[in-house]
């Protein structure tokens, strides 16, 4: 009886007499499940559509590996973004940070330090940008939208300055090898493993640690969090650092994937990550969100892109479909949400 209440366990406690209807606790669990299940349903439907329209190409192992690999880069970014949105913020600079980190980590000077030099630089540049964002927002009192918009602009500018618009090829074998089929373990590409690890760590961080609790509290009611003794500003700083860290990791994955660093990397990642988090059920106003939902959102978007590409449909159609899915997801959530 001292076990934590788990969603799977039936309610044994006495239900509260809330307006005579079923237990609000049970309905909340049901709502969370409905959300996850409906996302899984959409994903399953997409797999069926893919399998029916392009039975050979879509269900091919190579293609499934490709989908997951493509989902990995934006997925890692989305995990960080989910935390920021849950805390009531927004990070528009993720794409620019990915670009900056990927070009900084692939300069000739950096590549001299080999594998470790590239990884270290990508992560440190990500953290550095996150630190600037966090300081401006938490201690400079800037609105997250503006501060990260400024980071977007200057990050992209700096990335262009570093590369002069040229693609920087990676010459470090250790990095390139990670993208090759030889490094797959049981058919799973290393990139996907990193994505899975980041997802797992993100889930644990959100659901099992004080950091996660504080993030939710700050997003749900910042004034109440402050008056409860939470250091709201420090928490905000940490959240943007986390988002920067995720961007650094994503930049490293992108370097492996493309074998290069380009200042155009991560284009519109901010929109994809926000969209994935939102269709995953994260409230844009903060205070509620799940890692599972966000990751499913990423997988849904990546799968759609893949199916459209296999069916030779234009990018324009893809983008319209994405927009429609965002609208549909939010409308469904509004209906299932409480008043």
């Amino acid at each position: 009886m001292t076990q934590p209440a788990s969603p799977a366990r039936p309610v044994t406690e006495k239900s509260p007499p809330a307006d005579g209807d079923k237990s609000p606790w049970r309905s909340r669990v049901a709502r969370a499940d409905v959300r996850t299940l409906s996302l899984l349903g959409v994903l399953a439907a997409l797999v069926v559509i893919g399998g029916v329209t392009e039975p050979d190409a879509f269900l091919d192992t190579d293609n499934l590996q490709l989908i997951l690999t493509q989902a990995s880069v934006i997925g890692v970014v989305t995990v960080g973004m989910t935390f920021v949105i849950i805390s009531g913020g927004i990070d528009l600079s993720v794409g620019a940070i990915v670009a900056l980190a990927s070009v900084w980590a692939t300069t000739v000077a950096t590549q001299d330090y080999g594998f470790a030099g590239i990884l270290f630089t990508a992560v440190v540049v990500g953290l550095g940008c996150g630190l600037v964002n966090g300081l401006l927002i938490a201690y400079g009192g800037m609105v997250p939208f503006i501060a990260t918009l400024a980071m977007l602009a200057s990050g992209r500018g700096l990335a262009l300055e570093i590369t002069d618009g040229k693609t920087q090829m990676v010459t470090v074998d250790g990095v390139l090898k990670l993208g090759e089929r030889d490094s797959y373990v049981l058919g799973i590409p290393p990139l996907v493993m990193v994505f899975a690890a980041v997802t797992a760590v993100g889930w644990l961080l959100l659901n099992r640690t004080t950091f996660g609790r504080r993030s939710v509290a700050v997003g749900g009611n910042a004034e109440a969090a402050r008056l409860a003794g939470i250091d709201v500003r420090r928490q905000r700083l940490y959240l943007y650092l986390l988002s920067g860290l995720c961007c650094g990791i994503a930049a490293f994955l992108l370097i492996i994937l493309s074998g290069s660093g380009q200042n155009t990397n991560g284009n519109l990642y901010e929109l994809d990550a926000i969209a994935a988090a939102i269709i995953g059920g994260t409230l844009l106003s903060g205070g509620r969100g799940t890692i599972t939902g966000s990751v499913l959102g990423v997988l849904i978007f990546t799968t759609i892109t893949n199916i459209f590409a296999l069916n030779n449909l234009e990018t324009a159609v893809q983008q319209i479909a994405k927009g429609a899915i965002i609208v549909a997801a939010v409308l469904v959530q509004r209906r299932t949400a409480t008043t």
Partner: protein
Amino acid sequence: MAPEPPLLTMSGITKSFPGVRALDGVDLHVQAGEVHCLLGQNGAGKSTLIKVLAGAHQPDDGTIVWRGDEVTLRSPIAAMRLGIATIYQELDLVEGLSVAENVYLGHESTSAGFVVRGRDARASTAALLKRLGHDEIDPARLVGDLSAAQQQIVSMARALSHEVRLIVMDEPSAALDPDEVDNLFRIVGDLTAAGVAVVYISHRLEEIRRIGDRVTVLKDGRAVAVGLPAKETPTREVIALMTGRNVEYVFPERPQPPGSGAAARPEPVLSVQGLARDGEFAPLDLELRPGEIVGLAGLVGSGRSEILETIFGARKPTSGQVRVDGRALRPGSVRAAVRAGLGLAPEERKAQALLMLESVTRNVSVSSMSRFSYGGWLDRAKELRAARDATRELSLRPDNPSVPVRTLSGGNQQKAVLARWLLRGCRVLLLDEPTRGVDVGARAELYTVIRRLADEGLAVLLVSSEVPEVLGLADRVLVLREGHVVHRAPARDLDEHRVLDLVLASGQHGPTHTEGPHSPATTEGSPAS
């Protein structure tokens, strides 16, 4: 001449929100051409009632009869079409639009259906402003550039731009200087002379005496007095209606008369020295011992909540110190206060204390997460156990801390806040209107809980608008008026009448403070413009 039928008759208006019944069968009768004052403490139901009248809330029950016909006010527009205009305390103007655009917002005069005829709007706005005695306001100026008083005039011009028969004014004088208040009263006089009824909400009783015709007093969602004559009813009676009890409570017994056996008295846990905030409250000295409940009595605006929030570090003091066990706290730091063992149950429970999307457990544990976490890793079983113990100790219902906190009643939500500080091991509890939004029937239990916590060694500083609550619960009482402590005494040496006298007394009876915050007396004598 046959008596005119009332302009507005609201009867049996009932409105519930999750957790609390905001209005419980309220009646309001308004005659054409009268100033009808609506009085009540914060949370008495005034705002809900005027929102029902403005069509912004739909009542659960009750009828509204307007000029002899029963009506349903489905939306603010429906109310406006009938001629009911509301000027809210929080002004609802668009700062980025001009005065004229604001006045005609939503009913712009147009030609060909869509072209806004700005010049006409400006001309008629200028006429309205002139009628209101403020022709110095340029209709083309942006509302955001105007002073608060001028914005209020614009809001009033907007109300008058409709065919209006009833205007509701929610604390219109709160932001005004004395000579602006005179102008407001002149406008109210002009309106009523033209047959328009005014429902006037204010905390300032002297205003009600000056312009009011009749008074309706709300308390705990009920009308405790309907249509009293405003000029003849004694002030004391009005205040007693607002602050008094409609149910007699048995307050928990005090353990032993405080002050006896000074040698045995424990050292003060909290001591406040010369704490002040400019414009809010004058330097305050206060000591609080374990097991003691000290009450702060005073009307709205006397600085009560500001004092609590400043002690708690949520506001930065202009001067002075807060010490816990003799150690000074870092001023303006909530974290320092919480670490030292202070806890605040704020007045606005939903906005300032609760995480409404979260479970009771998470609301209770949020201030003491380090107690069941190891290096940031939460032991959720331990957390649930701790939250359950804390909520059981306060008999929080339902006895299941996994339910979302928003499904609880007001009284149980307050218990969740108290449980948060209990779990934290808090030693000084600051309670700001602890029974606000708590159903009348559930209050006695909360009193018992508060007294028991004190008996167990907590020091409690209690703020309440309800004089009997302070007198019944506290050991010692500080009476506040306009940011000054005007009296200190053991609660058993005071009664309701004495406290009301102190709260209402004019300046000369109080102690003389040379540097009073925001004394209206300094501006009153100055010549107008």
